């Protein structure tokens, strides 16, 4: 009877260990706090109508950022535990984590950082910026956009649900290599949680990628040919084409693993014909292009940042474009370098080793292009430019270690060592994460209407740069000394000092992230003074800068006619045309995205715990929702020319009113001391005047 109702769930599935109780309580308390605040501020309707069901890619982008930041902190907590454990657990001491717990932590860390932090930020940026850059009002399918976002959120929730139900996550490493991830060796639900979290968010990614491709190829402003597109849009296009090519591979592979676990098939088992090596082959066929999917938009961001802050157009547009296309093309043919040691032999290893080394060529073309852009530019060392400079050195060094690893003989020594761990963190942090930071600080004024605090931004950058090298430099050395990855304990006490240095580097990184949160808060406090009143704070060249800051929900009053590259620069030179008010069609809000994603979550949960009625009901529900949505004819509404004119004129009035007061704001960006004082004053006022009553 219990099985009919709740499948395999038992009372033991609920939290009963310090870590799961702690994790569950944290989420529950955060949730309760959020509910209380929103209720007291009476913002439920606003939250639902203006944000959760919004199809505005700008709002969806910001929601992606918020969830990704939250997961950054969650994944960061995992890393701190790893650093602590590895510094303590040497020789006779065994740290504070059991081996099994440690394995779950590094698995969750990998899944969260790749799927939910990096992909979240990248999708957020593409959503926000690409329509503005190509002169579109929205993406090709607003429905797929919101659906993709909520499927991502469903994945985020799924990867954390094990705290409440089940208590254990997968302990297989972030890719769940078979046969360890099969039922025989991972009998619990941990791997199932991993499969469904990745599967649900993976489908969201595929849908989002299709959406972006159609938008970029079919919805550019009239006159904007492909050769006139900004480089961030090019990077996004290449990345999304790769995504659409390889995410189906992930979907299929995860389904095969799921079938092995759920109905006892023998794809990757150790008996009856299963071939576990095929799993490794398939999963890396997805896994390697995935990291380039993350990297290409970052390349696009850096191209824009370098150009803007050197006040020069990119040295060679076509080198940048073909460099990015070249990287995407080759990225699809190198995946075996992740398993040189599995035994395919010299011929196979040689081919893939050579292809891996070849990728260094288009990448270097890009790097030299950026450096050539800086040459004889009039460089402004704002924070985005600092991120770029940090990136160039770090990424180049990381890339060189990559070429080292690409040699099969060297890889036989370094495979799965800490050298490898240091290499890929260099690429992902130095490349993707710092690219995201550069992009967010560059486009922040466009998103919010005010720029970020430069002073604290600089502190954060330096802490990140020094912290990163302190944390991962020792890992390169350790790897060469023979330390393997994923060690929860080691006997060689000579290694311990390196791990301790890495821990301090990690603390510095944690401080850096803290400073970035402080930076955002400080910018909010000073937002009047930091306001971007023109819409074009950095003298930009692409179309997003032609809109006011923050961009209105319809992006443009008139879709501009484009005649050249650097379209906005062209407009500034030739004169910006006056707005002509016409009716515009905008999509309505959509709640079915949330419902479908919620049902997808329940479907996954039903499969994990084998709750048959839940599986059936959720599946039917999803089909019904899809049918309701696709046969809904009333999906758009019209803003009349008169309304448009009224909104535009109101904004101008507000801006003028603000500008009249702006003479008083001549202070510098606040530093940490001023921020501390500001927060202290506010807290004292809050407590003294019992301001919680007025919410």
């Amino acid at each position, binding site marked *: 009877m219990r099985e009919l109702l709740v499948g395999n769930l038992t009372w033991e599935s609920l939290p009963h260990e310090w870590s799961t109780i702690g994790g569950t309580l944290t989420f529950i308390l955060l949730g309760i706090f959020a509910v209380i605040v929103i209720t007291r501020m009476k913002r439920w309707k606003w939250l639902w109508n203006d944000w959760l069901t919004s199809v505005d890619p700008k709002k969806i982008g910001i929601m992606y950022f918020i969830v990704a930041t939250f997961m950054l902190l969650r994944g960061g907590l995992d890393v701190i535990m790893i650093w602590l454990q590895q510094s303590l657990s040497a020789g006779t001491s065994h740290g504070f984590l059991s081996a099994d717990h440690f394995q779950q932590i590094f698995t969750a860390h990998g899944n969260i950082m790749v799927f939910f932090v990096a992909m979240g930020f990248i999708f957020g940026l593409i959503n926000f910026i690409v329509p503005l850059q190509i002169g579109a009002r929205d993406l090709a399918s607003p429905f797929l956009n919101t659906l993709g976002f909520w499927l991502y959120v469903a994945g985020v929730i799924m990867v954390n649900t094990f705290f409440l139900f089940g208590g254990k996550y997968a302990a297989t490493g972030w890719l769940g290599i078979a046969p360890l991830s099969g039922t025989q060796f991972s009998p619990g639900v941990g791997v199932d949680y991993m499969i469904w979290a990745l599967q649900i968010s993976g489908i969201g990614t595929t849908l989002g990628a299709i959406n972006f491709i159609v938008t970029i190829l*079919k919805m550019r402003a009239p006159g904007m040919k492909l050769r006139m597109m900004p480089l961030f849009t090019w990077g996004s296009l290449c990345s999304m084409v790769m995504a659409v090519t390889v995410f189906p591979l992930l979907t*299929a592979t995860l389904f095969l693993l799921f079938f*092995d676990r759920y*109905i006892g098939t*023998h*794809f990757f088992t150790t008996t009856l*014909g299963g071939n576990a090596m*095929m799993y490794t082959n398939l999963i890396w066929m997805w896994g390697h292009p995935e990291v380039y999917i993350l990297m290409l938009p970052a390349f696009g961001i850096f191209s824009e940042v370098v150009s803007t802050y050197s006040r020069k157009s990119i040295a060679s547009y076509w080198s940048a474009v073909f460099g990015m296309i070249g990287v995407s093309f080759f990225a699809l043919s190198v995946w075996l370098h992740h398993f040189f040691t599995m035994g395919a032999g010299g011929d196979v290893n040689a081919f893939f080793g050579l292809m891996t080394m070849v990728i260094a060529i288009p990448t270097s073309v890009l790097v030299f292009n950026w450096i050539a852009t800086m040459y004889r530019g009039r460089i402004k060392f704002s924070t985005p430019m600092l991120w770029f400079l940090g990136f160039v050195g770090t990424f180049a060094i990381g890339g060189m270690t990559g070429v080292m690893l690409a040699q099969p003989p060297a890889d036989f020594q370094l495979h799965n060592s800490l050298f490898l761990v240091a290499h890929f963190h260099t690429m992902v942090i130095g490349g993707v994460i710092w690219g995201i930071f550069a992009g967010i600080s560059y486009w922040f004024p466009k998103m919010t209407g005010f720029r970020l605090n430069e002073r604290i931004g600089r502190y954060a950058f330096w802490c990140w740069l020094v912290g990163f090298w302190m944390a991962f430099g020792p890992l390169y050395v350790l790897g060469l000394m023979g330390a393997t990855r994923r060690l929860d304990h080691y006997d060689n006490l000579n290694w311990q000092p390196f791990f301790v240095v890495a821990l301090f580097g990690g603390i510095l990184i944690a401080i850096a992230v803290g400073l970035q949160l402080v930076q955002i808060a400080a910018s909010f406090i000073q937002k009047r003074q930091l306001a971007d009143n023109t819409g074009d704070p950095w003298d930009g060249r692409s179309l997003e800068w032609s809109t006011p800051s923050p961009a209105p929900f319809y992006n443009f009053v008139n879709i501009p006619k484009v005649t050249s590259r650097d379209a906005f620069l062209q407009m500034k030179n030739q004169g910006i045309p006056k707005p002509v008010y016409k009716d515009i069609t905008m999509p309505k809000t959509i709640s079915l995205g949330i419902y479908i994603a919620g049902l997808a979550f329940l479907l996954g949960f039903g499969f994990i715990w084998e709750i048959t009625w839940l599986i059936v009901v959720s599946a039917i529900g999803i089909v019904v929702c899809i049918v309701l949505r696709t046969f809904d004819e009333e999906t758009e509404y019209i803003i009349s020319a008169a309304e448009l004119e009224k909104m535009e004129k109101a904004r101008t009035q507000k801006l003028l009113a603000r500008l009249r007061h702006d003479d008083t704001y001549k202070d510098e960006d606040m530093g940490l001391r001023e921020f501390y004082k500001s927060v202290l004053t506010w807290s004292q006022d809050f407590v003294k005047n019992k301001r919680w009553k007025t919410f």
Partner: protein
Amino acid sequence: MSKPMNHEESVYDRTMFGFWVYLMTDLLMFAVLFAVYAVLNNSTAGGPTGRELFSPTAALTGTLLLLTSSFTCGLAMIAVRKGNKNQVLFWLTTTYIFGLAFLSLELIEFTKLIHEGHAPSSNAFMSSFFILVGTHGLHILIGLLWMVIIMAYVVSRGLTSNMMRKLALLSMYWHFLDIVWVFIFTIVYLRAFV
């Protein structure tokens, strides 16, 4: 870019293209299942091979049924362009019947195999066979469901431009499934006897 399209045309164009890209992702998913079948189809762990289990005649029958349904689907699309609602419903029903016949044959084959003890969990060859052919069958089932729903909407709302667009998507999907089947027929059923 050629002459600018009006709003309806551009929505149609974008939808067709977007759906085509989705079909490409589906094709890639099938590619993985084909790759897995190619690697594992000899791993019978001592059990029977395809030569002993498959009937080429049954497979040919199924293939011809599905091919016919793809053809009648094309005729339905011609009726759509002519705006002839009754013809559309007639040809779609024919497509449905042939598609259902194909799926039934397949289900009968699966049931027979499982009853004889050759289940997906028997060995790697059976696993890859059932999942490759089964996934195609699931796609057919979804297509049939889609056909019924669209026919219901055409009956109630008539052949509006929205409906025409959706019918175009369905026919693209249905032709695509027949194309995938050509490969399944060849690589699974015919190849077993090579």
